[in-house]
């Protein structure tokens, strides 16, 4: 039994954490008790091939994701980073290049930018700051393994679309429904689904929403960054 903290949620894992280095080390908790237990089946305790590791990872991720709505939180599929206290999430269909585009921003901004999570951050609300969604690092940070155990107040959600010319459009919440629903883990329990939808609604009303049309040159990052952060 080991205790872990992800997105300020404490939980226990029953079973082996072999091949789960991030969870074992970066998300190990000082707490003595978790709020709930995640069971990792015995068959995942021995040697595993790549597929087995992925399956084990999925089981833990889904078990946590199912509990998130109880903590006013959702699992978002997005590359997420911090620029001096401003959280930015890049969302896109797989293969569109959100990681590539995030890497361009990193080249542009250097150490002014910190990657929170390259693939699946948790976004969580708190009662004392009802309009501030916090994006947290998680152990599920994509094949490039980009990210760390930190949080940032999420200010901008950007939907990335490939284009020849670089330009940025502001979106309203209604326009973003399809895109955001496709990128949020949806639980199966009706109460949790209802809550997750409420949280999505809060999220798209709390953040600036952008559609970034971009190619894969550094000028794409310059155009998008200058528009979103209104720099001349």
């Amino acid at each position, binding site marked *: 039994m080991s205790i872990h903290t992800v997105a300020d949620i404490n939980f226990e894992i029953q079973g082996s954490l072999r091949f789960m280095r991030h969870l074992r080390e970066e998300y190990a908790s000082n707490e003595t008790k978790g709020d709930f237990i995640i069971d990792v089946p015995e068959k995942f305790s021995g040697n595993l091939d790549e597929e087995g590791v992925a399956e084990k990872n999925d089981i833990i991720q889904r078990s946590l994701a199912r509990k998130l709505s109880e903590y006013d939180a959702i699992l978002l599929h997005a590359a997420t980073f911090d620029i001096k206290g401003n959280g930015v999430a890049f969302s896109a269909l797989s293969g569109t290049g959100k990681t590539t585009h995030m890497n361009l921003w990193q080249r542009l901004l250097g150490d002014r930018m910190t990657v929170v999570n390259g693939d699946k951050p948790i976004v969580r609300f708190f009662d004392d700051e009802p309009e501030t969604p916090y994006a947290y690092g998680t152990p599920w940070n994509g094949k490039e393994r980009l990210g760390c155990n930190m949080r940032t107040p999420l200010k901008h959600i950007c939907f990335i679309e490939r284009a020849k010319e670089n330009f940025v459009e502001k979106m*309203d*919440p*209604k326009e*973003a*429904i*399809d895109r955001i*629903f*496709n990128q949020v883990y*949806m639980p*199966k*329990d*009706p109460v949790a*689904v*209802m809550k997750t*939808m*409420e949280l*999505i*609604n809060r999220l*798209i*009303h709390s953040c600036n929403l952008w559609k970034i049309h971009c190619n894969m040159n550094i000028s794409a990052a310059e155009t998008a960054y200058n528009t979103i952060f209104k720099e001349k």
Partner: protein
Amino acid sequence: MKLKYEFVINQVADQNVAVPVGEDIQNFSGFLKMNDIGAEILEILKNDVTVEEIAAEMLKKHPDSNMEEALETVQGFVAQLKENGLVE
């Protein structure tokens, strides 16, 4: 005909969004956006009904409409549900 799954409907950005729930959902893992009329039809489809019965029920809710219009609306909406394998 009736809905195959239970749906949870909530307002997101002033739109009705319906998400099917339950462990047995295999063919549809997404969501449906609909206007208030669609949400009303979905509610009626919790019971086993025919298109004509739905249209008659809708006519009671919207007496300004007529049967022809109601049938057309219901048929269009039900066709979308069928396409996604959500009614049986």
